[in-house]
């Protein structure tokens, strides 16, 4: 039996239903096609199946990080600028404790400490949604959870799924937003360089907090030492309070980078609330872009959902972990793609 391999793309700004109707023949030109649909591609394949029904050429679908029940990030991306400003506020707190004016403190945080990282995240998510998908595009409108398109697509999922439907989805490690930005910056491969910078900033804040607490400890000890010459000296108490306050502020900055910003990313951008257990386990539970419940929905059978470790959305079609999972899906009996 002859086989073909095609790698097709489409205008990601157009309404998904329109793309399915107008480009199905060129996107899926052969009978019995095994379609690997990355991100919106998986949703588009389902829409082609919905429109074509029994006449659809798609025999099997392996969706890879596809937002089957919607991508909250379409809404969340609009929050990104505000969220990042909140992050700068977190980092500015320490400098405010050092008596810098608010605007100067934010400027320091932005340009010296977190700016390079958040700018990468911002630029790449912005590129992804404002330019490639377009927050106001028809495609973006369709991808919103509970959009008219999504409601139609999912009103009877079985009519949109080839008999062989598999869902490969990523599960990125902690600091998933930083890793995602790095991967988008580097054509789908996280280099670790952005995360290293992130660690460095976080360590700086933690060290700053440490030395502030160290100073505070000195003034505390002096103030309460009944045999010392500064026993009960109000200046020492004031100095204790000052360094304690500064220590708390820098400590908060480090904690925010370590924990809160990951929670923010999940909640405000991806649209998923992390449980307390997930925070304790340091498990962000998605690919940093699409909630797992959408990328691996319940209407895809449990034995056809493949989870890829430490893989973010940008990496899903390049990282060995997800490629291995795709290999195992390809050999299942309802796909059984011949070896080439």
């Amino acid at each position, binding site marked *: 039996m002859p086989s073909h391999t095609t790698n097709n793309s489409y205008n990601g700004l157009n309404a998904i239903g329109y793309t399915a109707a107008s480009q199905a023949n060129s996107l899926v030109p052969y009978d019995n096609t095994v379609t690997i649909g990355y991100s919106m591609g998986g949703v588009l394949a389902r829409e082609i199946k919905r429109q074509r029904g029994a006449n659809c050429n798609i025999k099997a679908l392996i969706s890879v990080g596809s937002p089957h029940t919607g991508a909250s990030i379409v809404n969340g991306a609009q929050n990104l600028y505000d969220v990042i400003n909140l992050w700068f506020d977190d980092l500015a707190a320490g400098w405010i404790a050092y008596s810098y004016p608010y605007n100067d403190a934010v400027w320091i945080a932005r340009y010296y400490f977190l700016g390079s990282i958040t700018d990468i995240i911002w630029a790449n998510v912005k590129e992804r949604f404002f330019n490639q998908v377009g927050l106001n595009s028809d495609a973006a409108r369709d991808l919103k959870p509970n959009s008219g398109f999504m409601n139609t697509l999912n009103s009877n999922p079985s009519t949109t799924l080839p008999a062989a439907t598999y869902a490969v989805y990523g599960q990125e490690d902690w600091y998933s937003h930083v890793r995602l930005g790095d991967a988008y910056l580097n054509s789908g491969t996280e280099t*670790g360089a952005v995360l290293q910078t992130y660690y460095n900033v976080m360590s700086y804040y933690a060290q700053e907090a440490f030395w502030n*607490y160290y100073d505070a400890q000195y003034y505390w000890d002096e103030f309460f030492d009944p045999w010392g010459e500064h026993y009960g000296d109000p200046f020492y108490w004031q100095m204790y309070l000052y360094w*304690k306050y500064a220590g708390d502020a820098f400590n908060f900055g480090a904690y925010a980078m370590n924990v809160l910003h990951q929670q923010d990313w999940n909640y405000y951008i991806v649209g998923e609330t992390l449980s307390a257990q997930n925070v304790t386990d340091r498990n962000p539970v998605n690919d940093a872009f699409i909630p797992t419940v959408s990328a691996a929905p319940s209407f895809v059978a449990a034995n056809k959902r493949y989870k890829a470790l430490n893989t973010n959305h940008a990496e899903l079609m390049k990282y*060995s*972990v997800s490629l*291995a999972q795709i290999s*195992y899906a390809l050999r299942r*009996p309802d796909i059984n793609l*011949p070896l080439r």
Partner: protein
Amino acid sequence: MRFVLLSLIIMFTSFSCEEPISPVNYEANVIWSKDVTRQLNLVQPVIEKGFTYVASDTTIKCFKLDNGTLIWESNLGLIPGSIASAKLLHSNNMLFLNHKNWVKAFDKANGDLIWETYFENFLPVNLQIMSQNSTSLIVGGQGEVIKISRTTGNIELRIQLNELIPSGYFQIAYSPFISEDDFIYVPTGWSTGNGIKGNILCYSAVSGKYVWGYEILTESDAESCTIKDSLIVFPSSSSIFALNRFTGKKIWQTTVSDDAFQESVTIEGETVYMGSHDKSRMYAFHLRTGSLKWKSKETESSIITIITVKSNRVYFSNFAAIYVLDAFNGSIIWKGFPPEYNQDKSYIYSSPVAVGEGYMVNVGSKKVYCLNDP
């Protein structure tokens, strides 16, 4: 004041990029590593008598286990590409590797090719795991299994899998199992056109005669099986089954409510170990009753691999990290990525991990690694 310093120290310790694993009393370190070039290296190596044998890229290699000295290297005669097998088998003096339509045997001492067998009119299955007994090898394909002599590579039987399937359809033999008492057990899957079905088929390894078959009633296939005493155990979708391996009669079936299995069933002692690929947990079941002994915490990646159980530990890798679990309760004893991983995420442990003689060997995406057993 002391408490804030304490809290700060706690915060410092949580900066690691990997999730905290407890306990941390056990450590594994890379003893040596060697470069490989293919990213998807999925063949489990062999460890034996102070050496390790590794198939990756287009070669098979022998290294000294304790220091990584290359003893020999043999070309597999492949065009560059991933080997379509998931396990290297071995006997006293030979190594056996399957890839698409052929099986080759190499001399363990020097890597010389001893025999090679090409299967005509054979449709292979990707990532096929062969099985062996003391005289024969068994290979699964689409619609048939082939038994060959371990000594000569001669084809001894070709068994067409026509049972428990409508005419006009064919079933895929994933990882057939051959027992020392000459039975062949074949877990299969086939496409109905609207879904998947599967069977367990049993044949005589002497005559190829069909002995019994078990039809899986749920919409699912079976991709691995193993035996112990009179039982054959296999996973299918959300269930683990145990049958009498001489009659095909079901002894027990255990179904989990929120998970699914595919590969990697292993028996050690009186326990069945099985990895899941939906919730990515390791499970342990009582061999005789099927009751659940324990299930591990969720890991981050579907467990579709070959599990090794030794010295009360469960070892596996899931295309990225190596895990070592306590076989009594499933708690994680050790988990690790390659040392380069923190700087370059493309370094992962990708093949099933081989364990023995105090070492673990894994073929990663960029290197072969030998680690001490933690």
